[in-house]
């Protein structure tokens, strides 16, 4: 009986604990919830300040203002093009190199691998200015290519894919060769399809990373219509006083894609973090 009571008590205790943890979670996520709530408020309520979180009257006015007074959709499109382009190219470049490191033999392989990995030690911000000089001398300022070209390769991604490729049985590769399969055909038709999971992880993390990046697109663009959404959102200009509602509406629109990806692929993203890290 006593054990029963203890069990019952601990069950109730556990329920309370879970409720506390969810409240704690809501506190941590509060800035996000706050932004969404403000985005539906009327300007007068935003301007009243104070602790009012629930819109008195739910309105889409802020979204209308955000979408009409700034080329927000154009910014979104720019970001989408860059994030997609950079992630696809990076996936191709990284998996090719990872294949060579995992399956091919060549002189100084370990040294070359180390030289490649050493680039992880060089932060992107250190080479930012020199890269700006390079990209501008290529005439790529205000172009999509200029904005994404520095994201075309990542030593971390090569490393992650190599690790994943290494788990592929060498005997299967040899069997494929006996059947007359060339290296490239093996890579394309056997290796890549069996590693879809890792490829997807790398793609999603690369996409979120590029979508969220700020400093580089700021540096290589100066025309409004070429801005990415991360840069554009910090430059929104609305008439004084009504400013915060539309900015929160724009923020909500901008965070939807990454939050959606995060919710959908949470497990994949975590797996990717453990095998390398999200670069953001």
């Amino acid at each position, binding site marked *: 009986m006593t054990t029963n009571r203890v069990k019952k008590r601990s069950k109730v205790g*556990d329920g309370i604990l*879970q409720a506390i*943890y*969810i409240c*704690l*979670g809501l506190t*941590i996520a509060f*800035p*996000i919830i*706050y*932004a969404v709530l403000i985005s539906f408020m009327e300007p007068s309520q*935003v301007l009243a*300040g104070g*602790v009012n*979180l629930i819109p008195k009257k739910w309105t889409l006015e802020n979204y209308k203002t955000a979408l009409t007074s700034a080329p927000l959709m154009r910014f979104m499109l720019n970001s989408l093009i860059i994030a997609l382009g950079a992630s696809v190219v990076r996936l*191709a*470049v*990284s998996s090719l*190199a990872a294949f060579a490191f995992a399956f*091919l033999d060549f002189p100084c392989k370990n040294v070359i691998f180390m030289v490649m990995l050493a*680039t992880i030690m*060089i*932060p992107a*911000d*250190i*080479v*930012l*200015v*020199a*890269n*700006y*000089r*390079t990209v501008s001398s290529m005439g790529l300022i205000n172009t999509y290519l200029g904005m994404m*070209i520095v994201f*075309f*390769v990542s030593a971390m991604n090569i490393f992650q894919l190599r690790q994943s490729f290494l788990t592929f049985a060498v005997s299967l590769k040899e069997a494929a060769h006996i059947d007359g399969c060339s290296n490239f055909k093996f890579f394309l038709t056997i290796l890549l399809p069996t590693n879809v999971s890792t490829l997807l992880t790398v793609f999603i993390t690369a996409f979120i990373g590029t*979508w*969220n990046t*700020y*400093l580089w697109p*700021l*540096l290589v663009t100066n025309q409004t219509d070429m801005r990415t959404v991360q*840069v554009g*959102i*910090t430059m929104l200009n609305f008439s004084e006083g009504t400013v*915060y509602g539309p*900015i*929160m509406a*724009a*923020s909500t629109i*901008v*965070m939807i894609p*990454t*939050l959606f990806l*995060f919710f959908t692929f*949470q497990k994949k993203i*975590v797996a990717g*973090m*453990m095998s390398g890290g*999200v670069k953001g």
Partner: protein
Amino acid sequence: MGKPVVKKRKKTLFQKFEPIFYLAPAFIFLGIFVYYPFAKTVSESFFLLDSMGKVKEFIGLENYVSVLHNSSFVKAIFNSLKFTVFTVPFSVGLAFCLAMIASKKRKTSPIYETLFSLPMAMSTSVSAMIFELMFSPTLGIINALTGSSIKWLNDKDTALWVLIIIQVWMNIGYNFLFILSAVRGIDADKLEAADVEGANVFQKATKVVLPLVSPTVFFLLCNSLAKMIMMSGLSLILTQGGPLGSTETMISWMYKQASENSNYNNAYASAVIAFGITMIATIITFIYEKKGVNYDN
């Protein structure tokens, strides 16, 4: 008999060059956008450059002397270090606490785990815009809740602290997921042994769990150290380094030298100094690692 030998030799010749085709794209991009700019940044920091970035003459360490005599850059170094010293331990420490309470799997754990990790999906720009409103002196919820009238981002004494709070918030999710998976990987027997010995929650966390997850914590410290020393986004978006240079960081200073003043002498020298400081910080962490990190279990 001769034929297969020839065929084999041909194949090895092709095999000799084949890896190049696979490696070339990666190394071309690494060459143009990592090795070359790094070498250029370091080497050209010893030269006098004009506003077009053209090399004029070798001047040795003069760029470094000039940058280190610039009081705004010296201030930026201290701001970056202060930002790092507070952001890194707080974001790892808070994440550790969250991982401790979330370690046991319960019915609702997917809900609060997701809520704890949500900030990692947020970009610097969007987080900056949201917190700017929250910390707004007149309209923001922070002052409304606390009844204070602090000017936050507009006050030189508080501005950097606001940036620290935002960054800690942004880092929590990522660190939490890392530490959580490490904590869940701990041998259940070791935790039970601590229970049997009558350890309380705090003792269990610091004496049992922390040593066991120390490799993960060390990885997170190293990883975020470099990123935090390089912080510039929040400062450029929210304060442009102000008020009175109180939020200027090394990289935001470098960025302005290059993009606003076309002063590549200052930009390259400050980049190399920032890199040097990151290296020193990383080496210090590695020295500490030898003492504090436990890989045996």
